[in-house]
């Protein structure tokens, strides 16, 4: 297990380095940073001054190393639009996005896992059909539309929940449901497929032949094996939610990284975009690592590989 963990960790570091090169190259490929920083009305000598001041005239590898060392210390430079440190902006927005992503994933797991399990125990029953209906709806319904329907229902018709903002837990209920519902179908279908396959396996028959309680057979022997692909999927889903919750954040006016990323792209605020890409992809790498380690813990055969 230790050897496997170290191997995975090394791999994760390599991926993270690749990602950092990518996000550094992104800024340079988008154009001359000195021109972007100087603005429209700048003269050639202004641009040259900025190039000197920020060291854009140095060789690229040196600039990359300099940027990476600073980024590792939490210094992502200054936003071109707000003229404030990107790190402070991120510290402001990240908690909201992380909370939303975490809650949405928890929602998706809480709905998707039990429904998938029940659907697998009684395939083609009414509950299986209902679960299928829920998952097809979840996949087909546009997020922004579902969000607006919820707002109409629970903020206007029945004024129970605030329609926007991020002050209290109440603000997170509808965004969580919308974002979580979008992730539910895949988790449910994968759980169902995994459970169906595992429940037909020989070791489940052995477990029943031992006289174990059906709940033990189901939750210990079957679920542990069926849930392995769901773990990997959840990590991917969580990563996706961190970066892809723009629509939900915009509809509910939650000031998270999704919204910041979208606005920064439209303002060509390259240092901010670069920092968000780097931070979110690093989270993604960490999540994949956690999923891999969790799977190795669940299935001893993976540890050997």
């Amino acid at each position, binding site marked *: 297990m230790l050897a496997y963990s170290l191997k995975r960790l090394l791999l994760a570091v390599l991926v993270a380095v690749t990602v950092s090169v990518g996000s550094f190259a992104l800024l340079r490929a988008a154009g001359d940073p000195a021109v972007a920083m100087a603005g429209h009305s700048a003269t050639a000598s202004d641009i040259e001054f900025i190039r000197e001041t920020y060291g854009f005239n140095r060789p690229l590898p040196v600039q990359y190393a300099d940027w990476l060392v600073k980024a590792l210390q939490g210094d992502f430079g200054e936003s071109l639009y707000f003229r404030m440190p990107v790190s402070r902006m991120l510290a402001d927005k990240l908690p909201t996005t992380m909370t939303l992503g975490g809650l949405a994933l928890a929602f998706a797991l809480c709905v998707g896992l039990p429904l998938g399990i029940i659907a697998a125990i009684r395939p083609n029953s009414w509950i299986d059909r209902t679960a299928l209906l829920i998952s097809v709806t979840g996949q087909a319904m546009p997020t922004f539309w579902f969000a607006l329907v919820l707002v109409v229902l629970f903020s206007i018709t029945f004024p129970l929940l605030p329609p926007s903002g991020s002050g209290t837990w109440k603000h997170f209920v509808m965004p969580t449901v919308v974002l979580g519902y979008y992730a539910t179908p895949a988790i449910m279908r994968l759980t169902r497929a995994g459970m169906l396959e595992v429940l037909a396996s020989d070791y489940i028959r052995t477990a029943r032949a031992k006289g174990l309680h059906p709940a033990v057979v189901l939750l210990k022997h079957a679920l542990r094996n069926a849930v392995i692909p769901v773990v990997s999927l959840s990590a991917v889903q969580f990563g996706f939610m961190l970066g892809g919750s723009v629509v939900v954040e915009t509809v509910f006016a939650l000031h998270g990284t999704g919204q910041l990323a979208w606005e920064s792209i439209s303002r060509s605020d390259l240092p901010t975009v670069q920092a968000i890409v780097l931070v979110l992809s690093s989270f993604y790498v960490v999540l994949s690592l956690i999923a891999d380690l969790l799977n190795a813990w*669940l299935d001893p055969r993976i540890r050997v590989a």
Partner: protein
Amino acid sequence: MTPILEVEGLCVDIPTPAGTLHAVRDVSFRVGKGEILCIVGESGCGKSLTSLALMDLLPGRARREARRLSFAGTDLGTLSQKAMRNLRGNRMAMIFQEPMTSLNPAFTIGNQMAEALRCHTRASAAEARERAAELLALVGVPAGRDRLNQYPHQLSGGLRQRVMIAMALMGSPDLLIADEPTTALDVTIQAQILHLLEDLRDRTGLSIVLITHDLGVVAQLADRVVVMYAGSVVEEGPVDEVFGRPAHPYTRGLLDCVPVPGRTPPGSLLGSIPGVVPSLIGAIPGCPFAARCSFAADACLTRQPPLRPAPLQPAAGHSFRCVLEGSA
């Protein structure tokens, strides 16, 4: 010998789109204490479903019916699910054909063995582990105590089947049902496992129902043998009687298919039984073997005769199901 298991009129039906499949048809047999009963027959004759029906482990839609299904005086037919669970894996245990896939890959051997005891008794984790280690030694797993922390994928097929047997013994069962336990193993390992089963019977007085299609296994191990064909018992009796003086044409056909060292002349053709097993969907009007039987008469096509004592030694408990006089 007092019977530990009495089966009378066991039927297993499986509904299919084409009609009801009668996989096991009115099967009756008894297993005495410390006896090894072999149920033999070709693939699809209902022998595995018979064994699963005894354990109440039939797959999904299969339905079990029996006039009498008695284990150590307990009527299994009327038992609640919970009471059946208490017997299963405890006083009656089962091992399966596929040792490679019959153990859960995610848990250690020790964990899986211990739970077999702990779900039936108040044994502590340490006690269960201790018993698991003892049993692994009993079934001949080398370095058994270290194996408790190993996972199934770290063990060979033969070792896994030994672990399965040890696991089945955790509750000190009176009856072990073994469904083709050696089919998936190498020949040398097969012999070891069979020897182990016999040894366990001799040492612990365990009764064994062994399901197999291998007549060599039957001859080596069985006290009594039940020959099944198309869901029905066609012949039953002490193994020496049935193999020495087979009364049913199907049993004779089966025995002709197996070479016997010293008796089968080198280069001679082995027997084979022409034709195929009839469909088990719906009723079979006459003897199910009639279409493949070289002795079949007109009566065989309309009437299935009852099991009756074999004429040569009626007292031996040897019976068969054929209109012929059963002269081998």
